[in-house]
């Protein structure tokens, strides 16, 4: 582990780093964890499982109406068609944004988030500020994050209080009619699939 900052006691490591190192070495000594398995768990979410998976689901739904229908009817099965399954995505529900309805996802009680399609959640999603506020002032929170909703649009907040995980299907932006599925994947952001942003048209079409 690289040093984080100069600790006041002259250690290369902060107190919490030392505590984690001590815990891991204790568990290794007792034969309870395999460090190589831990490396692989970290590697999986640092480089393999992330929002590009969700973007592929969204782009497919935009270009294939039959897939979109399956996705909205049975999110788990339709997402599994693209190979994304497993931990914290065992039961998936996809909610569709339209000009009249905007969906946004939170977990007020902890940090539930659809790992197979979005990876691990960003710090702001897990923050006390987001968890406390988005249920009571969703429009205000979205505005603060740069998304002003039309007054005639309804906002639906999905609080992930069970093992069901929610993915937002954003609106396909205008000016993308001639784009390929692969090009569309590159437009879709993590924040749009949580529901705190819209997918923007490509720069050339803005």
């Amino acid at each position, binding site marked *: 582990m690289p040093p984080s900052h100069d600790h006041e006691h002259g250690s290369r490591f902060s107190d919490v780093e030392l505590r*984690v190192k001590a815990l891991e070495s204790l568990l290794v000594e007792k034969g309870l964890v395999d460090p190589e398995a831990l490396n692989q768990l970290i590697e999986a979410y640092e480089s393999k*499982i992330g929002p590009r998976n969700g973007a592929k689901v969204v782009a497919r739904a935009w270009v294939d109406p039959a897939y979109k229908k399956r996705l909205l009817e049975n999110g788990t099965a339709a997402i599994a068609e693209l190979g994304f399954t497993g931990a914290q995505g065992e039961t998936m529900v996809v909610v569709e944004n339209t000009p009249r309805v905007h969906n946004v996802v939170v977990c007020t009680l902890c940090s539930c988030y659809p790992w197979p399609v979005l990876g691990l959640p960003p710090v702001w999603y897990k923050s006390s500020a987001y968890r406390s506020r988005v249920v009571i002032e969703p429009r205000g929170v979205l505005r603060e994050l740069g998304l002003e909703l039309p007054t005639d649009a309804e906002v639906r907040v999905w609080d992930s209080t069970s093992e069901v995980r929610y993915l937002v299907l954003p609106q396909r932006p205008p000016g993308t009619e001639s784009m390929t599925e692969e090009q569309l994947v590159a437009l879709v952001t993590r924040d749009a699939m949580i529901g705190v942003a819209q997918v923007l048209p490509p720069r050339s079409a803005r």
Partner: protein
Amino acid sequence: MNGVHDMGGMHGLGPIEREEQEPVFRHPWEGRVYALRQGCGALARWNIDMARHANERMPAAEYLAASYYERWLWGLETLLAENGVVTSWELTEGRAKGPAPDELRQRVLRPEAVERRLRTGGSYRVEADIAPRFSAGDAVSARNIHPTGHTRLPRYARQHLGVVERGHGVFIFPDANAAGLGHQPQHLYSVRFEAQELWGPNAEPKAAVYVDLWDSHLETA
């Protein structure tokens, strides 16, 4: 429990700070904590609901001041000690008094099992022939309960009227599972609460909150 973790609707918790190009783990130790939680979870000495409840029991002032993975670390140390996987002496000293029993060592997550574990996940849905108490469109009320243990019924929804939007099927009931009282499988629903019902006349217009709740959380309205 009516803890600070149940923060939906609270005021005063600050602005939302969004960072561009945020790394998955801000420090290497955060990744280790994440992986240790997963690795120790494979030992099957506790379930996911007990794990969430452990994080919730962090003293309130510490919980609010801690970063996310500091909470996870506190919860992991709590789970390990409470379930007798390590002793408090070992945790404090950072040294083992002896190897873990074979029964636990046989469950250790090995590198070759990692991908399968991630791709398969857990099983929370229960294939059981249990009649649902409610169906889509039913008017319901969230119960007025204040259990001291774990619950997935947030305070802000209690005693409020909602409408069942859809049924999700039969699932393990976390409030019981966290307390070691078994799965108590029952129907889970997505319940829609209008913003004005939850937050009063000054609530934002045209807004609703959907909360996933189990049969035990709901009454006919």
